[in-house]
């Protein structure tokens, strides 16, 4: 069953009690939280996601709860736990939803070593994937969000799960984390976008989460092959430009952007080297999303280029 089939009361009760087994891509996470804001957010963002039964295998056990002590009553906070550990300091209560997303990212990047995990947005069209690696602020989430509503399937705005066996990318299809001005930019340009309430003062600035469009969630089991590695860079007032980048430099930059490159050693190197070998590698500078859409629409898959 999907999460949207639970009533708000059932969802809240599940989260307060034994937990809800949320399926996101190849992972199942048991989430517990007594915080209403988390239940509201999950109802908005994860309605199309499958809920696994209580007997099914769970990869991660997470919770978002209020820590004990005086903070329970005064300037309430939210604490994330992952399999009994607390990887982050508690954050203000109204950041509980972004904290859940950051925590789910942490679960994947610290445990999912069956993949080479790159810090990259991932979108797909006609069976071909564009990887958008980039540091925070490069504009990859905004680009992913806009293109998701303009002909591309979203696999992830943040984490590329690359198979070490065959180089295919496995989708996660989790909410897009939007920051600061990009929240309003997407609201204006995509009126149908479903966006969570804004957590205004996080370490990353204002943060809101965008629900993944239904088609991308429905196809979450479909892997796809990378065809392009595109390093985006948002630059105010810049004319959109797609410029070739050398494969050697792309490889090194991808290695720097990988969470577990060193874990995989030679296999990780071969995986990245094969990936850039097969892909067109580019730097992409942009300021206007519509220009970006046009340029991305003209990308030719490897066979035709």
């Amino acid at each position, binding site marked *: 069953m999907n999460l949207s089939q639970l009533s708000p009361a059932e969802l809240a009760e599940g989260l307060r009690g034994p937990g809800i087994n949320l399926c996101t891509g190849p992972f199942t996470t048991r989430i517990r939280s007594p915080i209403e804001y988390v239940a509201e957010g999950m109802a908005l963002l994860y309605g199309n996601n499958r809920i696994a039964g209580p007997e099914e295998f769970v990869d991660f056990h997470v919770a978002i709860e209020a820590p004990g002590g005086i903070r329970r009553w005064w300037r309430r906070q939210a604490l994330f736990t992952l399999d009994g550990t607390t990887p982050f300091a508690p954050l203000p209560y109204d950041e509980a939803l972004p904290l859940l997303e950051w925590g789910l990212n942490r679960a994947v990047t610290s445990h999912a070593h069956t993949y080479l995990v790159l810090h990259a947005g991932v979108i797909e069209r006609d069976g071909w994937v564009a990887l958008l690696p980039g540091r925070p602020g490069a504009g990859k989430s905004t680009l992913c969000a806009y293109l998701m509503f303009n002909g591309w399937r979203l696999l992830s705005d943040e984490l590329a799960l690359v198979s070490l066996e065959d180089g295919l990318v496995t989708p996660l299809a989790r909410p897009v984390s939007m920051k600061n001005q990009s929240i309003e930019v997407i609201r204006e340009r995509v009126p149908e976008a479903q966006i969570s309430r804004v957590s205004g003062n996080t370490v990353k600035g204002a943060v809101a989460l965008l629900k993944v469009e239904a088609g991308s969630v429905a196809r979450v089991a479909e892997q796809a092959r990378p065809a392009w590695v595109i390093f985006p860079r948002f630059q105010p007032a810049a004319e959109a430009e797609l410029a070739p980048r050398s494969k050697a430099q792309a490889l*090194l930059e991808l290695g720097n952007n990988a969470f577990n490159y060193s874990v995989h050693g030679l296999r990780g190197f071969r995986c990245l080297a094969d990936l850039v070998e097969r892909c067109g590698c580019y730097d992409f500078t942009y300021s206007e999303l519509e220009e970006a859409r046009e340029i991305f629409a003209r990308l030719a898959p490897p066979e035709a280029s």
Partner: protein
Amino acid sequence: MAELWKSVDPSKLEWRVWSDEHVVYDDGSGDTHLLDDEAAGVLRRLCQGPASADQLVAELAQELEIEPNQVLESHVEAILKKFRQLALIEPEAS
């Protein structure tokens, strides 16, 4: 006697080449390096056997069809220094 240099275990080095850019992964250290043509040439030469800086300069000059000169010597010295820092080469035990 001039110091001889050798590469780390060549079987631990995995190479990929795209036009004039060479990427070498050192499975001993887990480091990945981007090298230009000349640096890659020096490292590949040292993978075949030990050589001194003078030998490398002479061989490089022959390959480039020029006389050995100060600029080439400085260049080879700089490459060897960098390789030592990156632990890609080590002195040949005498």
